[in-house]
């Protein structure tokens, strides 16, 4: 099985002296669905931020798609980010662009030819079930719909890897469940999925691999895990 993500003895200390991660090692294989769990401040977001190179590690090494990105210069970050999709708790949609424009945006900035942009954007919106809301502005959409737009944006370049940081954090239980099902469906199509969450319910129902962080360390890495440790 090809390894998509590998962290080797990664330590991340912030300039203010806070240690976000201490000697974390983990790897994720192609096609896996992984829940990253743990209380706020455990280091879940930092792991994701290292993978899409919003941060670089203090010690240790980070590989994405077989490539060493440990000391990747900031100007090479855009190219890396185009090879993966990221979804956030607060959706991060451009408020003055329609759903269609928000998704198309991810293609425009990578120089996709204009003839290709329209069909691919519509296909991505179709995949998340929002083809009929393409012309709506973010404020005209519900939270769940906004998150679907942001997932469509993350997927429109058909990246092999999707990262989600608390994707259900701002959503009610029912909508959260719909979003997780959507992510699960996308994973079944072959996209490797790493989801940071503290939504106990979805973790327990899906029974996927669970990596638990506490105080910046990996305290559990279990296949078919539950939110709470069984040990």
């Amino acid at each position, binding site marked *: 099985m090809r390894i998509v993500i590998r962290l080797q003895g990664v330590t991340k200390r912030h300039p203010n002296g806070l240690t976000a991660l201490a000697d974390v090692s983990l790897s994720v294989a192609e096609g896996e669905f992984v829940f990253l769990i743990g209380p706020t401040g455990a280091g879940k977001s930092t792991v994701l931020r290292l993978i*899409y190179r919003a941060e670089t590690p203090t010690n240790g090494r980070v590989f994405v798609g077989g490539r060493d990105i440990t000391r990747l210069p900031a100007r090479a*970050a*855009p190219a890396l980010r185009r090879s993966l999709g990221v979804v956030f708790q607060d959706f*991060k949609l451009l408020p*003055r662009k329609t759903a269609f424009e928000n998704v198309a*945006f*991810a293609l425009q900035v990578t120089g996709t030819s204009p003839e290709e942009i329209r069909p691919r954007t519509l296909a991505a919106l179709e995949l998340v079930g929002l083809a009929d809301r393409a012309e709506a502005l973010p404020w005209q959409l519900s939270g769940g719909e906004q998150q679907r737009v942001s997932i469509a944006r993350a997927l429109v370049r058909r990246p092999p890897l999707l990262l989600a940081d608390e994707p259900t954090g701002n959503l009610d239980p029912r909508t959260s469940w719909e979003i997780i099902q959507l992510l699960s469906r996308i994973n079944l199509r072959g996209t490797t999925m790493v989801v940071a969450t503290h939504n106990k319910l979805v973790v327990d129902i899906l029974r996927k691999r669970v990596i638990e962080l506490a105080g910046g360390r990996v305290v559990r890495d279990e296949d078919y895990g539950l939110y709470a440790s069984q040990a």
Partner: protein
Amino acid sequence: MRAAAGYGAGEAWTAFRRNGLMSLAAVLTIMVTLLLVGAATAVAANLRLLASILEGRVEVVAYLRDGLAPAEVQRTAAAARALPGVRAVTVVGRDEALGRLQDALGERVSLRDLIQTNPLPDSLEIAVSNPARAHEVAAAVAEMEAVEDVTSGGQVLDRLLAATWLLRGGGAAAAALLAGVALIIIMNTIRLTILGRRQEVEIMQLVGAGGWYLRAPFILEGALQGLLATLLAGALLVPGYLVVRDRVGALLPFLPLLDPAALLPALVGAMAAAGVLVGMSGSSLALRRFLHI
């Protein structure tokens, strides 16, 4: 690069429309500063014209001794012409000098009736290439054997030079100072419009926008703001100059003023170039310094 430019131009225009109020504030700020700089430049250009006209009148006159042979006069004129800093030398014979004096006095007084002989000497009118060197030329001419006396305006010349220096230097300094202030104000204004869209830039970076895809929309938006501001400023400055020129011309008819056709096209052109350039560099600087890209 070309795809980025096309995409950037579209984005710039959309952003400009959707950020209405902020864009308007930026354009008006740039317009007012450009207008001030433009007006100061117009005034400075007119002061420079005045200074050069005043300086063009500076002349050294050498009065020659009596009884020189014409050949001697010509030799002295040639020697004066050869001096450094001399632009032209005109020989004024004593008869011509008397004629000029008669012309100056007018018809009421007839010199012929008052004096039988011509008391005036032959003289050389020496035009200098640089008024600041008039004293030097006068001193050199005074050394010549055929020359009896020299005038170069003396104290009047010194005061004139001080005045023209002030006109030139003061005008240029005021324009430069205003341009500097304008630069700071414009860059700060554009910085604010970009800071207001920090979130937008962050999202652009997250979806992998880099290089020109990130910068082009903002830089082109800055250029657009600069250009619009210049058009507005020009629309006020051109009729403004025409009106002021008419008024001043009527009040002080002896004051030389630059022809609008000679001044305005170049001035508005320079303002447009400056507006666009400052708009672009303001955006570029703001992006680099405040968003670290």
